[in-house]
């Protein structure tokens, strides 16, 4: 469970500069699989994924929340083998095997929560999925504030078939809260939106709220 911290810091690894049309923050990966409600992205650097719950801009107009991060061998047919038997530390493993950076990949899965059209934010699914190779950017504080001003997006996370939906939702709120002037007010407002969507399940709301830094 991560503590709330700016969404950008972990993904601020080295990478090519952004185009002027895109956000001030650097890209961290690109789309490798896409549907209207879910996107799989591959990170440009090993372990270069933003934390769970980070609001991500897909290309210029689509918004999604990180709902999973995984790292595995680039070639599914070739399983990774243990290499540290003779070495003192984990970092020595990577130092001794520089090829690992090329043989492993870090993937992120994203739940689509809305899109932007003509400067307006819509908290429902876009008409079409993003194209493959669309770049992924962790949203800036300003983008987080602009998009999460309303809390209707929570419905898309709650409705996703993920077994971890509640954790993803809590993580997304935790990540976003510090960007607001009054984090508590933001959290309570979002929780009221969640409560409205769970009219017969106060227990689930209570469970989500236990994962939030709010009393």
């Amino acid at each position, binding site marked *: 469970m991560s503590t709330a911290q700016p969404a950008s810091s972990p993904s601020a690894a080295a990478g090519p500069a952004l185009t002027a049309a895109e956000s001030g923050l650097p890209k961290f990966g690109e789309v490798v699989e896409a549907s209207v409600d879910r996107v799989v992205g591959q990170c440009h650097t090993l372990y270069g994924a933003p934390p769970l719950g980070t609001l991500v801009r897909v290309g210029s107009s689509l918004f999604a929340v990180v709902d999973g991060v995984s790292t595995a061998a680039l070639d599914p047919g070739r399983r990774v083998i243990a290499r540290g038997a003779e070495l003192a530390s984990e970092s020595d493993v990577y130092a001794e095997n520089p090829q690992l950076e090329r043989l492993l990949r870090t993937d992120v899965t994203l739940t689509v929560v809305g899109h932007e059209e003509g400067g307006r934010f819509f908290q429902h699914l876009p008409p079409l999925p993003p194209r493959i190779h669309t770049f992924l950017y962790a949203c800036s504080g300003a983008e987080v504030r602009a998009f999460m001003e309303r809390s209707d997006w929570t419905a898309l996370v709650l409705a996703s078939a993920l077994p971890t939906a509640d954790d993803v939702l809590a993580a997304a709120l935790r990540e976003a809260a510090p960007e607001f002037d009054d984090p508590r007010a933001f959290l309570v407002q979002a*929780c009221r939106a969640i*409560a409205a969507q769970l009219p017969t399940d*106060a*227990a689930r709301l*209570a469970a989500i709220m236990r994962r939030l830094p709010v009393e």
Partner: protein
Amino acid sequence: MTTNGTEPDGPVRIGAVVGGSLSRGLDVRLESAQAVEDVKVGTFVTVQGKFNRFFGIVTDLLLDSSDPRMASAIAGGGPALAEALSGTTAYSTASVTPMLTMQAGGEGPQPARSMPPHFANAYRASNDDVAAVFGSEDARHIWIGSPLDMEDTRVCLNLEEFVKRSNGVFGKSGSGKSFLTRILLAGILQRGAAINLVFDMHSEYGWQSTSESGYAAKGLKQLFGSRVSVFTLDPASSRRRGASTDYDVVIGFDEIEPDDIAVLASTLHVTDLGVQSCYTLERRFGRNWLLEFLGHSQEDLASLADSMGENAGTLGALRRRLSQLQRFGFMSERSTGGSAVRQVLEHLQDNRHVVLEFGGFGDNITAYLLVANLITRRIHTEYRERTEAALAEGRPQPTPLVITIEEAHRFLDPGVAGQTIFGTIAREMRKYRVTLLVVDQRPSGIDGEVLSQVGTRIVCQLDNDRDVDAVLTGAPGARELRTVLSRLESQQQSLMFGHALPMPVVVRTRAYDEAFYADMGVPGHGAALGTASTPSRSDLFG
């Protein structure tokens, strides 16, 4: 949404209709935490339908939740969870009974027979709404108080309708019945809606009396001068109180009829057999039967019993009981020519209002019953004749008469209601323009049939469940009104409903003070509305 949009801050929305029924009331989901605590039982609410506006009253409040398991789910939750749940999963509804419908541009309020649709917005009623429903002060309407939490709004009572039926002021002792009655009497008098005859048991309506809080409340005589005549049964007491009275009442034994004794049977402990004997005695001795009978010595009584075919023991007991009447100072062996009863009638005929003070006899229920019944019976006869004559000759009917009686359950309990003239008046005298204003603290003691004839009921706080039941009998929405009634404060608040009001209303009664005196146009208390000191038929009713 006000009728003319003059409300300074606009209408205050409290929520939206989410369910309910016409009989049970509409469920209005309250919008905000503030609304939850501000909306009270008895608050007026308007609901804006698509075509009609509905006017209703909050009869119940409910904390509800969409999740039946919520209580267990929130265990250990902090204030943030409470904030998230309030107004979403946990919410409050108000039960609003729709009473009236107001069509845009249509005629006045009509009884509600339809409902607003789902999601219709509900608002707190504005001053304009209340005025549209209850009318505003004019020649017929008097301002009687304000709805709860609407101190600037005036609830008005249509006196013309009010005096058409018998009415009741109920409430436990000290709940403000007397002040309410004073306001009603003064209103009737000032607007000339009817002539008052008040049987003033505790001598509080005619001349100044001091309330429980030490406040000296002016009597009708002080407010309206010579338009009011005060008769007293106890001149000594009136003098002691410094009250100005017009006539001392003296009643002759020859004015008492066996019917009067029948009413007194239970208070004098006269048996049914004894009452029967009274009728026999009257047949034998004629008009002066009572005095003749009381004049018999014990020995004479035996021969009288023989000759009448009665039991000597019965007659002996009857004589003992009836001799109590001789102790009353206002009883005289023979009535003088202008008997008190005649005087009262003449005053009423001259459109003068009469207050009959009982002074020291106020605590004597026998005296009160006897006098009230005796006088009212003559009035009954008189009014009946006058009304019939007026009908036959096509003349205008006499001015309506309102007879105020206190401790009404004594006259109207199921045992005697059939015999007393008050029972008859309550049931049928409306046709003859005589109605009752019943002031009582034990409505459950009043005959159900009589109570059902009470047109407008004004109810202050009542503690006894049976009294509450009795007073609500036959009222539409009695179940809901019961909740309202049980929440009344102990003073200065009353629930009013019935004939003269378009819908039930909880009122904070207006104060009976200098401002009221001024409204009534009392000299020395601000501008006079009418010429209070020069009464005449043409002045008042011309």
